[in-house]
């Protein structure tokens, strides 16, 4: 039942998507599990937020459906734990009639959706498909970023320096002056960067590498805090 954790950092995971279900009410989680399986969705079911956190596999293409009101770790606290772990799994909270303010709070702290009880089965299934689609997109863009990171790691220190300056928008002349090399040398480094990173244009380099560097910087700051 418990998923095998793959220590690998590779995000390419071609297994079918999985729906994590967390609800403290046995009948609710059992019936939801049956419903999801009846429409061909794989799911893993947990009775508490802590149980789920212990088993959660960030490498798995997935989404999470959780009751917002649970004894122990509540839905809101679960969302906060996921944020702390930089786990970007899309979360759909199931809320009771009077829990809308709680759901709004959860959305503010990063939940992707909520659904109010009682709900139509198709409504929940649609939301799950939407959440899985957004997870797939996110994973694809992360995979692309990882590929770029890997290519960046093949650059020489001097090439890396030139790449950073180009992404920041410095002209070749300025880079040449700052690094004490000829403009021609900078042009050669730039050409090698474009080839090694498989970039077809300056615009592509600035946007994709800029995003990766930005994210690494942000998580570097987050890690330093």
């Amino acid at each position, binding site marked *: 039942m418990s998923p095998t954790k793959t220590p690998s950092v590779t995000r390419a995971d071609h297994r079918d998507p999985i729906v994590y279900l967390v609800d403290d009410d046995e009948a609710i989680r059992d019936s939801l599990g*049956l419903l999801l399986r*009846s429409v061909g969705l794989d799911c893993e079911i947990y009775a508490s937020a802590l149980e789920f956190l212990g088993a959660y596999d960030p490498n798995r293409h997935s989404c999470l459906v959780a009751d917002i009101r649970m004894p122990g770790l509540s839905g809101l606290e679960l969302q906060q734990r996921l944020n702390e772990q930089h786990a970007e799994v899309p979360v759909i909270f199931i809320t*009771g009639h009077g829990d809308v303010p709680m759901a709004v709070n959860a959305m503010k702290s990063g939940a992707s959706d909520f659904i109010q009880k009682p709900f139509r089965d198709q409504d929940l299934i649609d939301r799950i498909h939407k959440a899985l689609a957004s997870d797939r997109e996110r994973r694809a863009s992360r995979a692309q970023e990882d590929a770029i990171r890997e290519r960046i790691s093949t650059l020489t220190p001097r090439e890396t320096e030139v790449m950073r300056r180009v992404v920041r928008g410095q002209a070749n002349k300025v880079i040449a002056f700052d690094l004490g090399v000829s403009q021609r040398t900078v042009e050669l480094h730039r050409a090698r960067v474009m080839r090694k990173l498989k970039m077809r244009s300056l615009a592509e380099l600035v946007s994709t590498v800029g995003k990766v560097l930005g994210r690494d910087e942000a998580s570097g700051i987050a890690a330093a805090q």
Partner: protein
Amino acid sequence: MVSAELRALLDAAVDAIVMVDEQERITTFNPAAERLFGYSAESAIGRDVAMLMPEPYRSEHHGYVSRYMQTGEPHIIGIGRETLALRADGQTFPIALSVGEARGPNGRRFVAIIRDLTALRAAEQSAHAVELRLSQVGRFNLMGEMAAGIAHEINQPLGAIATYAQAAKRILEREHPEMQTLIDVCKKIDEQALRAGRVLENLRKFIRKQEIRTEPIDLNKVIVDVLNLIEADAHAEGIRVVLRLGSELSAVRANAVQLQQVVLNLTRNAVDAMRDSSGKERDIEVATERTAMGGVRISVADHGPGVLRQLGDNIFHPFVTTKREGLGVGLAISRTIVQSYGGSLAYQDNPGGGAIFVVELPPPEESSQ
């Protein structure tokens, strides 16, 4: 007959003063008594003092007097008490009564000083009415909080049932539905339905546990205690309240506040029923008496249109009402309360036109558990 000084004293007294001879005939009736009882002194003097007392005090009175004459054992003399008095127009009203005795050349005289307690009782009862209302509001609030908790407890199994049913439908829509899975789902739906039922059953037990304390109470006192509330309703519609309280009633095991609610509900219905009726008889009668089985019967009779035969016992069902602005829960709640004491609440046609609602309560030994 009386000295000028005594005459001045009698005339100036705020309280009614009535003097009675050994034969219980009225000998003196002061101006305050005239105002209070609605008889002139001329018409009162010489008549039996019992005319100033409603039943059951009237019958009891003769017993007290003859016993006192025989044994010399005072029942009220020098003690004083609060009781009910009867006006010339048939109205009863609460009084404080004190009695003194004088022995003179013409034999014994009894002096009764009577203070009208209507205003005092009205003040007390409006305070009591507020208390009554508050206790009801309190109960409703508690019900509201409980309802929220119960809603969650019931929604869980209902939610699971709905999801199981939706899953079953989807499984059935497949080309080869797995029968065993479907059988399991049906079992689970059944279990969840039972679970929801248990929540309600526990709720019922809880409410029963909350049951209000009952104790042996004097039914006449219950009615006298709410008389002002009844009269306030009735007088606003120009309706007279006639009390006919039985004597020697056994105590019944009940809750006074609840029973007051029942009586008030019945008298309010009676007033409502007569509001638009133009019959000559503009009174409602509230009576108590002993039943053959030793219990107690309260009846509230009006001269309204009565209850349509085809409605029958339905009038006791919740949300059945003949009033434009009624919720239709009064009789249902009243019957539930009375039945919780082992008693009954029933309807009879009033032979004189109108309705009679009859509450019967068993003697204490039968209803106590």
